[in-house]
């Protein structure tokens, strides 16, 4: 059994993929790719970016009870050039959207986006009757992982980070480098 022979439903199932990787994989995953994937997924450094309430839960995830430094998020980087992931925690409004796009453009490849909280996923409690909120951050930048909740528990954020790690482990950076598409 290999990647090419797998059923589509199995490929989309994280647990099956994990078992597959543990059982040795196949030729498609060369050793160098595997090492790079392992390195990238286990040291994701986010940008300090929090607009509202979800930022507090993100801070709590970094504190001593639900420590996310165990997952490789060792430290927050203040500068977008040095960050790997941007965790959009909080509502994005019309005035903030160009700023977010600029920050995303300033990050260097490979970069990932986690939309944390109901506001970033779809506008959240501010979906109806407001003139200034962007209903979901995927109108501005491409999103890799969506974490629902208002605010999501720290455990939810950790699960979202683990999903991102699984997504990164499936990449083959040498043969198929990740290109972020240009948004029009």
């Amino acid at each position, binding site marked *: 059994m290999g990647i090419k022979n797998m059923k589509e439903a199995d490929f989309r199932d994280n647990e099956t993929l994990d078992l597959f990787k543990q059982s040795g994989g196949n030729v498609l995953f060369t050793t160098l790719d595997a090492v790079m994937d392992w390195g990238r997924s286990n040291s994701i450094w986010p940008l300090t970016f929090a*607009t509202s*309430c979800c*930022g507090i839960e993100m801070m*709590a995830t970094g504190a001593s*009870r639900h420590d996310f430094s165990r997952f490789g998020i060792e430290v927050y980087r203040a500068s977008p050039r040095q960050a790997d992931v941007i965790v959009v925690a909080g*509502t994005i409004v019309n005035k903030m959207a160009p700023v977010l796009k600029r920050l995303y453009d300033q990050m260097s490849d490979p970069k990932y986006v986690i939309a944390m909280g109901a506001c970033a996923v779809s506008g959240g*409690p*501010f979906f109806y009757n*407001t003139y200034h909120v962007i209903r979901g951050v995927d109108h501005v930048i491409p999103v890799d992982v969506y974490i629902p909740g208002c605010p999501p528990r720290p455990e939810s954020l950790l699960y979202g980070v683990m999903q991102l790690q699984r997504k990164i482990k499936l990449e083959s950076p040498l043969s198929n480098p990740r290109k972020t598409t240009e948004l029009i």
Partner: protein
Amino acid sequence: MKEVINLPVKNIEEEEYHINMGPQHPSTHGVLRLVVSLQGEIVKNLKPHCGYIHRGIEKMCEKDTYPQIIHLTDRMDYLSAHINNHAVCLLVEKALEVDVPERVKYIRTIVDELNRIASHQLWWCSFGMDMGGLTCYFYGLRDREHILDIFEESFGSRLLHSYYTPGGLMMDIHPNFQKSVKDFIKYFRRKIKDYDDILTGNIIMQERTKGIGILSKEDAISYGVTGPSGRASGFACDVRKHHPYGVYDKADFQEILGTEGDTFTRYMMRMHEMRESMKIIEQLIDNIPAGDYSAKMKAVIKLPAGEYYQRVEASRGELGVYCISDGNKTPYRMKFRSPNFSNLSALDHMSRGVKIADLVAIGGSLDYVIPDIDR
């Protein structure tokens, strides 16, 4: 032979230049953009640019019913979420002349004070972190988790609960509530001594905060700076004392005023407030009367036509809710007088002549939460 060349020495005029702090900045506590006009390292003036989290809550309130507005007020100043809810509930109950049971008043007061302690713990952790002491971040959040555990057991959520509702509470407290709160008070009384050991007595912190960012009493009143920042300048503005609500009149606590109005005094005000809050909780926790957790309210709440104003003491100052009703189930106009809005307007005045590094300390001591400014 070496020649000594005498170059003419030019007088380089010191020019003002503007730098931009934010909206994405680790120390502005949210999305605030400060355009700071500097001369060397000294701040000449600064202009805050708000609106990066303006969600139009006041416009949304004109289409939401009163119980739905509670969910929006939670998200304004999310660190004193219960106190914001309390303001709207009191406004509705006063307008409809509803008598809430005593049990509800006691529980609301206790939960408000727990929320105040949690908010000040988060303030302490970010204040230390902004000045470079990362230990404070871990200590403050570790102790805050105990309060969040109590909230989660009784109300179901860690940060935003919408637990108060017009007429009373959503549900009764958990049977373990009183014991957990008493255990927490015992635990935190020990830990707050650690806070003093780490930060208050630290010589670097004192050098960075004493005499910096002075706000006089007249300026505090004129700018409307309330809460611990206003009390540090000598402005006696505690709504719990001057216009009591809940059962604050049954608890014995002091309103502590400072004299200097500098950053260190604002810091000490919040440390005192944490201790006073613990005193209030201790006096009330054993005396919660038995009874209903909610008064009987109609299914659809319609306020009689008129104007209503309710003030409460949020963690950062006086929160006012001004509601104009025309008899329908949604308000005609709902205005929130937010404490952080007025506190921020004094930032320019307080930071004339300080160095740019002190600006972060002043902002931290004012403890603004940006979604409350922008609503």
